[in-house]
């Protein structure tokens, strides 16, 4: 099958060097996105979501120990491009990033309009006037009045700043926009209107999105597909509708059970325990320690097993018997993983 996907990520890894050892923040992540599709990456704090975004955009911190994997954009392997080419040809013009804490993502001493127009001026060498006109267009698109073009960031409210950063991400008409927790610092009403802007942009411009969040409720609005991240790995990647109705991975199920819903009798369930340290991740399944359905096979790291078309789960429960590393095969529930080698 010819690869029709816009972005294809294979076995992406990002390891940090710290005083205590190597932190495996992103560890063997694979997924793909079609053109015009929105992928939501869900996960708890500290599971490596933001690191994943930064690895894709090559905004790496100083203490990087290892970066690995293949990233292909439109059939071009961008992970193999030298930094300078990547910066010129891919960053912002093809892929843009709205970072977490975008409250402070604007330069405090430059007018907002000039900042939004900046990528065009610098990367495409557009004349000032033309770039500002284009900036005015995206201002309208994200629902910001043009009066704010000549304002400084500190004169804008949080929601306006978020819109301005969004405008900046859209200004060069990229194929893909990565949004890292775009609404988590905002009040509910502003959240809703930002999500509406995103939906409109997706519908009208056909832009693909990667939306990184911990907020299951907000993510369901935009998502075509969902990837659930746990301890540096994607444990389940699947169609959004299927994920929200019948999640396959035990972690997915428990996560969905922890979300409060309207008109729901039973109380939301929390997941006992803590995610493992990314310094010394357990040898087997990383969720095993918190999993109620753990059994012998869980001492071995499960591969991403295909379940349906474009649906992968990293759990032995869904393995065919012959794919399991343990001869007696998986049991459905309740067994304690006391398997010893």
């Amino acid at each position, binding site marked *: 099958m010819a690869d029709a996907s816009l972005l294809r990520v294979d076995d992406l890894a990002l390891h940090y060097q710290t005083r205590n050892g190597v932190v495996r923040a992103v560890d063997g992540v694979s997924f793909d996105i079609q053109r015009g599709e929105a992928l939501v990456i869900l996960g708890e704090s500290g599971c490596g979501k933001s690191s994943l975004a930064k690895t894709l*955009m090559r*905004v790496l911190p*100083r203490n990087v120990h290892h970066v690995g994997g293949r990233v292909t954009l439109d059939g071009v392997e961008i992970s193999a491009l030298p930094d300078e080419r*990547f*910066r*010129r040809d*891919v*960053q*912002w*013009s093809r892929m*843009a*990033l709205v*970072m977490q*804490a*975008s*409250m*402070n*993502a*604007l*330069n*405090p*001493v*430059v007018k907002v309009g000039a900042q939004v127009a*900046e*990528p065009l001026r*610098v*990367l495409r060498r557009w004349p000032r006037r033309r770039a*500002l*006109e284009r900036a*005015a*267009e*995206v201002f*309208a*698109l994200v629902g910001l009045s*043009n*009066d704010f*073009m*000549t304002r*400084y960031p*500190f*004169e804008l409210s949080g929601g306006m700043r978020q819109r301005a*950063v969004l405008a*900046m991400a859209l200004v060069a008409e990229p194929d893909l926009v990565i949004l890292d927790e775009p609404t988590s610092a905002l009040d509910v009403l502003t959240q809703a209107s930002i999500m509406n802007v995103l939906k409109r942009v997706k519908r*009208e*411009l056909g832009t693909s999105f990667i939306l990184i969040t911990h907020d299951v409720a907000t993510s369901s609005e935009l998502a075509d597909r969902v990837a659930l991240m746990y301890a540096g790995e994607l444990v389940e990647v699947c169609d959004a509708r299927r994920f929200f109705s019948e999640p396959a991975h035990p972690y997915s199920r428990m996560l969905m059970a922890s979300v409060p819903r309207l008109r729901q009798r039973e109380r939301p369930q929390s997941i006992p325990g803590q995610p493992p340290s990314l310094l010394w991740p357990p040898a087997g399944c990383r969720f095993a320690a918190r999993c109620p359905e753990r059994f012998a096979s869980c001492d071995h790291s499960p591969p991403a097993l295909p379940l349906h078309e474009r649906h992968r789960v990293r759990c032995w429960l869904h393995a065919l018997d012959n794919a399991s590393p343990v001869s007696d095969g998986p049991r459905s529930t309740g067994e304690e993983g006391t398997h010893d080698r």
Partner: protein
Amino acid sequence: MTLPRSAQASSDAKARSTARRSLARDLRHLLLFALRRLVGLLFTVLVGVYLTIVIANMGGKVDELRLVQIRSDVSEMVRADPAFQDMPAEERNTLIARQVGLEVERLRLDEPFLLRSFDYLQRAMRLDLGRAEQMHSDSGSRQVYDLIVERLPATLLLFGSANLLVFFTSVFAALYLSRRYGGAVDRSIIALAPSSAAPGWFYGIFLILFFAFLVPLLPAGGMVSVPPPEGRLAYAASVLRHMLLPLAAMFLSSIFISIYSWRTFFLIHSSEDYVEMARAKGLPSKLIERRYILRPTLSPIITSFLLMLIGLWSGAIILEQVFNWPGLGSLLFQAIGHRDTPVIIGGVVIFAYLLAATVFFLDILYALLDPRVRIEGGKQ
């Protein structure tokens, strides 16, 4: 995504008029801000100078000492004068009393100190600094103003060049190091930072020992050779030779800590969210350094530059003594030694004015550089 054509034209005109309006708004805020700061600073100088006058006169106590001094001087003079030798004691005493009275009236010591302190104040504010009690300038003038003006250039020359050298060297070295954080050069400079625990004059003593006595290459002190060489060029060369050692002493004592602190400063500011955003935007690193690191931090950089200038006005007492440099520091040192109140007050007044001027300049620069100051500051 594109707007209809008519809407675009009207939005164009609108954008231009908003730009003009925002410029006018900025200018108005700036002027208001400058005016308010000027009034505030003048008041600060007024209070500072008045406090100095009160303290240097010990709240009027110095006048009593002066009265005793006048009495003993006058009686000494009258007793020593052969013309009054055979005068009866009573007559002589009335003569002395009259002379003392005249002198008291001349100095207006009969008026309350409070009244005179305001008189001093208004004269000081007009830079009418009066006459020194003991000291005189090299040209023989006893005007405090002349004394200070004579010494100021020497201080400015030495400390100005030393501080400029340290400032620019350390800022650029720090930018370089912040790019190579954790490298060998970075770590060795950091390791050298504690060398700044010793003051400049301490290094000065060793430099004099090595380069003036063990290997006599440079003069041990003074500002120019004796007698001063003829011709401008020769004179300048001689001053330069005399400057080298004190300059080196100051440079050595402050360069490493200065690089260290600027490097930390740049490291902190290069992890700001907007800098990371600029990196994600794919801007070239030179541009990021200029527009996203240096530009937003220009206010603190300039502050520390001007604070350095403020420190420079007063010179450095011990360093000037060690190198026998004829600057303001040693002038104040001598004035304190002689208890020459007008010189001390005069020095403080000049210093207060220079300080206020520097701060005012700084405020305006802030407002020009940082929209947050200009707009918020003009609003209140």
